[in-house]
């Protein structure tokens, strides 16, 4: 796959990184949602959320300072997943 070296994945679909990885979402115990593969990520207006890596972690505790991504804050607040 080719892309400008520093270009984030502009359409939010993870195409640049998707490769042969089948789409999956892993709910980490008391932690984030790990998203792999070509899963479209969009905001509430439908606009793509640019992603910069093949596997991303979505905040599940609500405390992240970089939402929608996880920043590890679930550990600091003692988040327990339902």
């Amino acid at each position, binding site marked *: 796959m080719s892309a400008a070296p520093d270009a984030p994945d502009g359409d939010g679909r993870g195409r640049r990184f998707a490769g042969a990885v089948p789409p999956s979402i892993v709910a980490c115990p008391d932690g984030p949602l790990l998203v792999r593969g070509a899963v479209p990520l969009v905001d509430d207006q439908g606009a793509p959320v640019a992603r910069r*890596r093949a596997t991303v972690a979505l905040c599940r505790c609500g405390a992240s300072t970089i939402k929608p991504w*996880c920043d590890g804050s679930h550990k600091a607040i003692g988040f327990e997943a339902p």
Partner: protein
Amino acid sequence: MKLPLPRGPFGSALADVLATTASDADPAERAALAAAASRAVEASTDVLHDEDLQLALFVLYELHYRGVEGVDEDWEWDPDLLRARAVVEAALEDALRRRVEVPTDVAPDRRSVADTLFAMTAPSPGPSLSRFVARRADRDQVRELLVHRSVYQLKEADPHTWALPRLGGVAKAALVEIQADEYGGGAPDRMHSVLFARTMTGAGLDSDFGRYVEEVPAVTLAHVNTMSLLGLHRRLRGATVGHLAAFEMTSSLPNRFYGDGFRRLGYDATTTEYFDEHVEADAVHEQIAGRDLAGGLAEQEPELVPDILFGAAACLLLDDLVGRHLLDAWERGASSLRVAA
């Protein structure tokens, strides 16, 4: 990297040998290296803080990475150098094993191993290097921080990559997933080592690897030497995996603080990008490292669980020792470096 000035008798003996080519070196002189290493180890009161031993070991390890300027590449696999290195490595591993506390009776399954690693690395509310940097450090101090970090971060990820051919299945795939991201997903200017180089440049520092080796104390070198020790020995693959897991698990939150500190001091977004990238990336990596990598390896090779936890504990010990060194110096109003950078 230029060959740094030796800090004691073993480093001097090593420098003399490295000044020659492997094919021309005096057999007696090179054979005497292991004995010089043994004497230095016996004379040492604290291997983790021993300037002579840690710098010499750092130089010996660099032969396996990008090499040392002017040093014959054939030295990398020279039996006499390896014998001398083994003496220092044994002392380092022994010092680490004696100083760390490793949880026992952890079941060799994903959940137990990951939970144990997350418990070992749980954020503590007390004073820390990263909080000091966020709130109080001045420009000289954050530059010192970068100088310390540069002996690892300019080759970030490389020591753990040694473990790749020693793993299989789920654990190998997990390590590839993490390391690929460390190396920028294949984009040269997204490599974490390159982001760190830009941070150094933004702070007015030289980003050539090894440029500041002369300035950093033994304990900083012990941190990176431990990664090389674990990474270069197949026997210690469990410890490498545990080390990486602990490293990733103690990264996101501190890097947010480091970024905040640099922003408070007026550094631009290019300079803080390294820290911001790690807040996001390592929140991903810690999950993969704890569950798929360490947990996966524990299920494949249950006998490695104690080593996985040892590697994690060694990472935490050295992170603590280095952090304490910097904070102690700064609280005294002193530099944490050997020579002002």
